[in-house]
């Protein structure tokens, strides 16, 4: 069921979003060669708890970390591990959720470790831009398909693969709410957008094909062809005017 939030609930979600966004910046500042993904996860958890919130992902469906940290060809849901050490040239995807007073924020970003290849930098930039193309369609009266098709058209114009097996989603009291927000679709189709809806728009873009494979750990999702992948996500509130990025830190 699609839920619409009132202004009071949106204010709480804004706070949850700020904590989420800031936790990602805490991790970003700690990224360097030789750091383990577990260490980044610990910093994220400590920051979220210091702010009086709870890491949403910890224990969600049995997930063992506070953040999903995925490297290079890992697309999403990477499990933080002590023996997973960042190397120069890696690209790291950090996906964080924080629950504050019963409402969630969900956000992700991709960062480079040290100097990264031009190819990787371009993929990250295209992923980020595809998100903003999608958000520009996230207006009351438009439909879910408008968001997906904007993301899809932009990313595929560079020859990249847009992941289909995993999609964005509504966010609120639950981490995953309706409607699903795919990064593909047909303009003018799908759920109509109303003011007060809050959704996580999250393009997952592969340098190769869109096919994915899940690892035996039950969580980590990789590109099937071993190509690099980037991820960019914000929790977005639909308003009467321009959409508001609840997890964006000014």
């Amino acid at each position, binding site marked *: 069921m699609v839920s619409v939030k009132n202004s009071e609930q949106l204010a709480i979600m804004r706070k949850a979003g700020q904590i989420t966004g800031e936790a990602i910046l805490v991790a970003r500042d700690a990224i360097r060669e030789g750091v383990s993904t577990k260490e980044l996860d610990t910093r994220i958890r400590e920051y979220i708890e210091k702010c009086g919130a709870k890491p949403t992902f910890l224990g969600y469906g049995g997930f063992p970390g506070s953040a999903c940290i995925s490297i290079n060809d890992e697309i999403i849901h990477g499990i933080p591990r002590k023996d997973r050490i960042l190397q120069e040239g890696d690209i790291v995807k950090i*996906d964080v959720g924080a629950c504050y007073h019963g409402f969630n924020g969900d956000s992700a970003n991709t960062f480079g470790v040290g100097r990264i290849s031009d190819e990787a930098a371009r993929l990250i930039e295209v992923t980020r831009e595809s998100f903003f193309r999608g958000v520009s369609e996230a207006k009351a009266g438009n439909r879910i398909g408008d968001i997906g098709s904007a993301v899809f058209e932009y990313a595929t114009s560079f020859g990249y693969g847009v992941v289909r*097996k995993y*999609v*964005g989603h509504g966010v609120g009291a639950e981490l995953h709410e309706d409607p699903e927000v795919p990064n593909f679709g047909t303009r003018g189709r799908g759920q109509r957008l109303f003011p007060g809806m809050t959704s996580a728009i999250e393009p997952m873009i592969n340098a190769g094909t869109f*096919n994915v494979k899940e690892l035996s750990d039950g969580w980590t999702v990789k590109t099937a062809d071993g190509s690099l992948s980037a991820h960019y996500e914000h929790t977005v509130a639909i308003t009467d005017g321009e959409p508001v990025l609840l997890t964006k830190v000014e």
Partner: protein
Amino acid sequence: MAKTNGIGALAYSTAGRDQGRLFLIVGMVDDRTALIADGRLRKVGTPKKKKLKHLTIVSESSEDCRQRLLAGQVTDAYVRRTLEQSDGLSDDLI
């Protein structure tokens, strides 16, 4: 954390005796397991339980199809028609 694409999507089976065949996802058991039907061997009334890791999703959930499934208004004929309309869809991508 991304959500697994669900009800109403078209997917190819990538493992098991039905490998390579196109199905409609008619329900979700949990975040990792789907219920699939093709309207022929696997009917809407007795769908196959299949892990999502053994499926490759090739098409979005159509809103019409999704609403029908949620309302319990999907027949085997509807599933067959939906699959036929998408026949050949991304065949090169399996």
